[in-house]
């Protein structure tokens, strides 16, 4: 009994210690990437290549999901608003929920599973096949050459993808609400424009998605770089990237939303 109890305390403390150590290592790694970023900016070709893999290849899934999420929001919103006879508020409902929350958060979750996992797998495999070690042998810094371009590509792509998600979502809601269900087109757009504030809603959404991009890119590159150089290690690191960066996005969203509501509310 006593041994079981003592064992579980030891297990819990080992888990906590491990988690804190990992967070510390990830933060230090992040600082290291930031410090070595200048060399990768000097070679924009590397960055363009990674923006292609992280951003351009995510276009289809982001746009299609945005369109469908918007369509569903339009349908559900219409159903509820109709009971109060205020279906022309549909534009407001859809635009605010997409621009403030759904756009940045859902796009970030998709981005984490589509691009974050790919970044981790690529860096992890490069480590497992000793390509990173070979670079170090040739006096090429792998953090500057491999990690930093992927990191910044994630940071740059995320706001653009989130904006696309929101825009396509609003178009989807327009198609369903106005074209299919017969909400007045003028009311749909004008009420939306009256209710959506550029600074409080759109700029906050962009800022949020930027921070999400930063978080996802940091988790994905760190997990890849710290992955055990085995097949199992890389596969576990990829899973951890998706889980951890999704949790990070949701936690960051709570904190950032709280901040923004405090900062810009009058």
């Amino acid at each position, binding site marked *: 009994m006593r041994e079981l109890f003592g064992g579980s305390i030891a297990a819990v403390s080992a888990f906590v210690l491990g988690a804190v150590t990992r967070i510390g290592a990830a933060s230090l790694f992040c600082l290291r990437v930031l410090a070595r970023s200048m060399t990768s900016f000097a070679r924009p070709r590397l960055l*363009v290549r990674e*923006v*292609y893999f992280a951003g351009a290849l995510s276009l289809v899934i982001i746009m299609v999901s945005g369109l469908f999420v918007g369509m569903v929001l339009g349908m559900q919103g219409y159903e509820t608003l109709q009971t109060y006879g205020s279906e022309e508020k549909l534009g407001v409902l859809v635009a605010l929920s997409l621009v403030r929350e759904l756009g940045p958060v859902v796009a970030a979750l998709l981005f984490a599973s589509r691009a974050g996992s790919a970044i981790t797998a690529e860096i992890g495999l490069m480590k497992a096949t000793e390509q990173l070690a070979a670079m170090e042998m040739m006096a090429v810094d792998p953090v500057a050459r491999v990690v930093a371009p992927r990191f910044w590509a994630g940071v740059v792509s995320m706001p*653009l993808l989130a904006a*696309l998600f929101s*825009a396509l979502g609003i178009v989807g809601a327009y198609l369903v609400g106005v074209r299919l269900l017969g909400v007045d087109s003028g009311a749909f757009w004008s009420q939306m424009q009256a209710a*959506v504030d550029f600074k409080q809603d759109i700029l906050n959404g962009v800022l949020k998605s930027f921070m999400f991009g930063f978080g996802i890119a940091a988790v994905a590159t760190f997990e890849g770089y710290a992955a055990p150089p085995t097949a199992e290690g890389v596969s576990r690191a990829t899973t951890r990237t998706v889980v951890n960066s999704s949790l990070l996005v949701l936690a960051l969203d709570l904190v950032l939303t709280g901040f923004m509501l405090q900062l810009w509310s*009058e």
Partner: protein
Amino acid sequence: MAHRALDFWVGVFVLAGFSALTFLALKVGDFGSGGSAYELRAQFGNIGSLKVRAPVRAAGVTVGRVRAIDFDSTRYQATVTLDIEDAYRFPRDTSASILTAGVLGENYIGLDAGGDEALLEPGETIALTQSAVVLEQVIGRLLYDRAQSEGTP
């Protein structure tokens, strides 16, 4: 050739992203219209639940927005600052009242133009105002009146 294809798709991505941002800013957020406006003030005894950015309407047309709401501690009244679009000017004896859109809708400010030939200059205060109708007070008065009329046979 491989370089060209890669650059092309990155270009498509960046263009699509920025056009989405422009769409959000212009079509959804109505960024352009906040440009040229002049300021008017109005004092109210009670603003009800009027909020910053609530519309200012004249004859039902939105002509501006509420920019700020402050409490004037010398007169114990609310000072409301309005941003009115430059295209619209109002006579000096215009009155401002706080109205409600629908039964449960938002509060907004309605402007009723008077017949004065002199116009309100930017920064001036609208003299004639009418406070918000607070639903609780109306119901309270109604109940009170009824009780009184029933009490006296």
